[in-house]
């Protein structure tokens, strides 16, 4: 398998009035060609920062990209000039944002907005660009006559489909979808996800799917990374994470969601709250909420440890420095 995108040791922080927010700390992930990579985490974990960081859309200031590499087909995007990265955006890597209601320009017709990206990247006439636009609209099951309508004339699900059409119009290699269905109702979510899956297979696009919904990950992704407080705590194939989870945070996430398939009378939530990103705890970032935490967790920072050749975990339990036994037996 060839790696299409490799993010290596990306660290991004934001300077705010309340202090420096360490949004991403030394994050490494890799997306393989033709695969869907899921990134799971809760609010404030750094998911959107990562998505924007890959596109080099981090607002600077207040953002500050401290270090890291973003290798796309082996080429480091961090080293590109602004003009060169613009050729990548929309053409090689596209992005879908969370809220379809606000992601489209309200004063431009949807057709113009799709055609714009085609004209920008493809060397074709304006007329052909609109032909392509109509094709794309039909592809996401929106009648092409509606291309001269404005975003407010579409429902939420249709808007997200317009955005998908726009993102795929130049046949990109990688699609970054940042919570693409969070703002949608469950039936609409299913439609949109299904459509994304079909188009992904049709165009052989790789997808980086960012979400907080474990169900969406299970049904759509090949590989998964779990992110907590700006750090990847566990990553592997979807089976590794869902069937053989190792990190206490991942376990906590699963225990927190009511299971639709079996009856659990009581949930087992993770204690406490996400740490303040302006003053992250020393040691393992999760130790404040972890029932297995020992002194070593409070003082040392765990390394990424291999479980198998794909599955890696950042936890001292895996490093055999902390034992689960004493707690579970109590």
């Amino acid at each position: 398998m060839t790696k299409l995108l490799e993010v290596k040791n990306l660290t991004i922080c934001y300077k705010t009035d309340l202090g420096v927010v360490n949004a991403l700390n030394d994050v490494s992930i890799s997306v393989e060609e033709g695969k869907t990579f899921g990134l799971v985490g809760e609010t404030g974990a750094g998911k959107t920062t990562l998505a924007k960081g890959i596109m080099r859309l981090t607002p600077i200031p207040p953002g500050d990209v401290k270090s890291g590499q973003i290798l796309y087909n082996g080429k480091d995007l961090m080293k590109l000039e602004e003009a060169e990265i613009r050729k990548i955006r929309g053409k090689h890597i596209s992005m879908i944002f969370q809220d379809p209601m606000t992601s489209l320009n309200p004063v431009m017709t949807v057709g113009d907005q799709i055609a714009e990206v085609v004209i920008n990247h493809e060397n074709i006439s304006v007329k052909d660009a609109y032909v392509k636009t109509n094709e794309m609209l039909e592809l996401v099951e929106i009648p092409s006559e509606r291309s001269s309508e404005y975003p407010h004339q579409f429902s939420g699900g249709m808007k997200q489909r317009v955005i998908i059409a726009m993102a795929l119009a130049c046949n990109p290699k990688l699609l970054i979808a940042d919570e693409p269905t969070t703002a949608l109702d469950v039936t609409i979510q299913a439609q949109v996800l299904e459509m994304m899956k079909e188009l992904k297979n049709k165009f052989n696009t790789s997808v980086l799917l960012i979400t907080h919904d474990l169900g969406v990950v299970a049904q759509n992704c090949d590989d998964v990374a779990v992110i907590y407080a700006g750090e990847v705590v566990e990553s592997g194939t979807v089976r590794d994470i869902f069937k053989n989870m190792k990190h206490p945070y991942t376990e906590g996430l699963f225990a927190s969601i009511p299971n639709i398939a079996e009856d659990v009378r009581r949930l087992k939530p993770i204690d406490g709250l996400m740490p303040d990103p302006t003053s992250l705890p020393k040691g393992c970032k999760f130790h404040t909420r972890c029932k297995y935490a020992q002194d070593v967790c409070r003082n040392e920072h765990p390394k990424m440890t291999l479980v198998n050749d794909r599955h890696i975990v950042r936890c001292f339990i895996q490093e055999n420095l902390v034992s689960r036994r004493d707690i579970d037996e109590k």
Partner: protein
Amino acid sequence: MSKYIIKRFLMLIPVLLGATFFVFCIMDMSPGDPAVIILGPDASPENIADLKVELGLDKPLMVRYFNFIGNLIKGDLGTSYKNNISVMDQIRDKLPNTFLLALSGMLVAVVVGIPVGIISAKKQYSVFDNVTMVVTLILAASPAFWLGLMLVLLFSLNLGWFPSSGMGSGFGGVIKSLILPAITVGSNTAALVARMTRSSMLEVIRQDYIDTARAKGLKESVITYKHMLKNALIPIITVVGLQFGVLLGGSVMTETVFSWPGVGRFVVEAIKTKDIPSVLGSVVVLCILFSFVNLFVDILYAYVDPRIKSQYKAGRSSK
């Protein structure tokens, strides 16, 4: 679209009726008997009574108001108490000058204010931005007529570039004499428009669709003009429309400073001589002018913002 315009136009009628009625009532409250003012203090009571009947002053307020409106529609605003000249004729001479002044002031405000606001927003916290913000604060805080005095002091008296008063003749003469008054009238609004444009742009810059545009790989200049500006202009159009009323008010004072032959100076003179028909006529005409400018702005607004247009298509009124 034409349906929208007609509807807006029809909605204007009750507003104008209300506004003119209010102004008519105010004027009616003014002390002093018009008949006495016209005939002088020595006139005999019979003459005064006769004139009252002739002027229709013996009738109740509502009757007089509807007579006034009826005459207004026919283009008759009565005659001045002072010189017996038709008020309409006098206003007809002067209104174009006031309109020209207010419009030029608006032009100054828009042509200077919007680009300055855009640059300030794009280069937030730069030297340009900081200087602009200080200058606009000072301009917005200065009384327009005083700014006029300062311009006269500097450009007419010290540098001798422009005439200090009156209206020149011929195209070049008019333009030359228009420059200082236009800057005077427009300066406050220019400052306001610049600040509004800046904050509106900064608001738009934060929107998700700008991220979308960036993610498409568009050039920054395309993003600024195609995506940001059109959205940022929507709130500014409303402000500019409302400011036209301020400009008309400001013209009154500026005309006095520069002896500009407009309605403003006319109305101030009329007030001082208690020439009620002239005051009433001028105020009513200014209100009508303002309302029509706002109507135009409303239409422009619908043109720029597709949400308003389709709201209307759905058969709803917008406000």
